[in-house]
């Protein structure tokens, strides 16, 4: 087994309103950001997974995203990255320690 860190993005589906993104967008010109157009707010979730290989780790990530992280009625999710953690099998993760 090896350790992987997955980066999952959860974002509103196209067509679903994103008031937070729209509000930030409207505030930008007054802050001098006049070249910035559409802003969309989503979540970036980093997850550490024990798996035999990257493909297996990604599979866990997809299942986690669909079952827990995103509400499929209004959100899409995507695995943005998956990287092997160095010698992680033994190293205990730091903050947010598992119970």
């Amino acid at each position, binding site marked *: 087994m090896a350790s992987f860190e997955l980066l999952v993005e959860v974002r509103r589906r196209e067509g679903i309103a994103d*008031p*937070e993104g729209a*509000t*930030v967008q409207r505030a930008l010109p007054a*802050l*001098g950001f006049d070249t910035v157009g559409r802003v969309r*707010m989503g979540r970036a979730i980093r997850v550490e997974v024990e798996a035999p290989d990257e493909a297996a780790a990604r599979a866990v990530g997809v299942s986690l995203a669909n079952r827990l992280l995103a509400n499929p009625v209004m959100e899409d999710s995507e695995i943005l990255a998956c990287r092997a953690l160095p010698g992680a099998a033994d190293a205990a993760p730091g903050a947010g320690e598992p119970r």
Partner: protein
Amino acid sequence: MTATVGVVVFPGSNCEHDVVSGIERAGGHARLLWHQDPDLGDVDAVVLPGGFAHGDYLRAGALARFAPVMAAVTDFAAAGGPVVGICNGFQVLTEAGLLPGALQKNRGLRFVCATVPVEVSSTTTVLTELAGQGQVLALPVNHFVGSYTCDRRTLDELRAEERVVVRYVENPNGSLDDIAGICNPGRNVVGLMPHPERASDPLLGSVDGLVLLRSLLHAAAGAGAGAGAGAGPLLSAHDQPPISL
């Protein structure tokens, strides 16, 4: 002479009228200021009230700190004027760099509306000078993003300089060191999560907030008399200055 308190209204603020009524019950005058105002006019103190300025979108206070009025508030604070941020106002003050640290979502990830005991930890600030050291006040808290956090160095400094102004007796949100409110080094800028204005009328159960509002009026009357002459405002080295527009 009764002091006049300017109460800043951002779009999304919702406690502004409550603060005005609390100030009046404490014997002062209050006037609403608009977030687009470039100056504060003739006020002796400023309150940033509770609510959800700019919807609290992105982060509580993140957009509000760029409002034109905040440049004026910063100048006013720098000249020693009393500035108090209540709840959302506290969040705005930290985002603006007028107070150190930040406010995070509550432990438990739920909004908390309750009246809780709060202890006065310092009586040398514009909000507490008429209160007793160690006095316990029953004050309403009402927030989702009220858990105070800062780095170790800042915390040490806050403690060493007795800049923790009020502490929770029963911590409702996971705040670091039970912090309910802090002040700047000049002790004229105070931010706190509890709402003194909600405890200013016997019909609502507690009048414990009045001592805080009276302190503010007292300080405001003093500051009005000797504006600028008072203790110099000290922005500590790591307080980032707000970006003025």
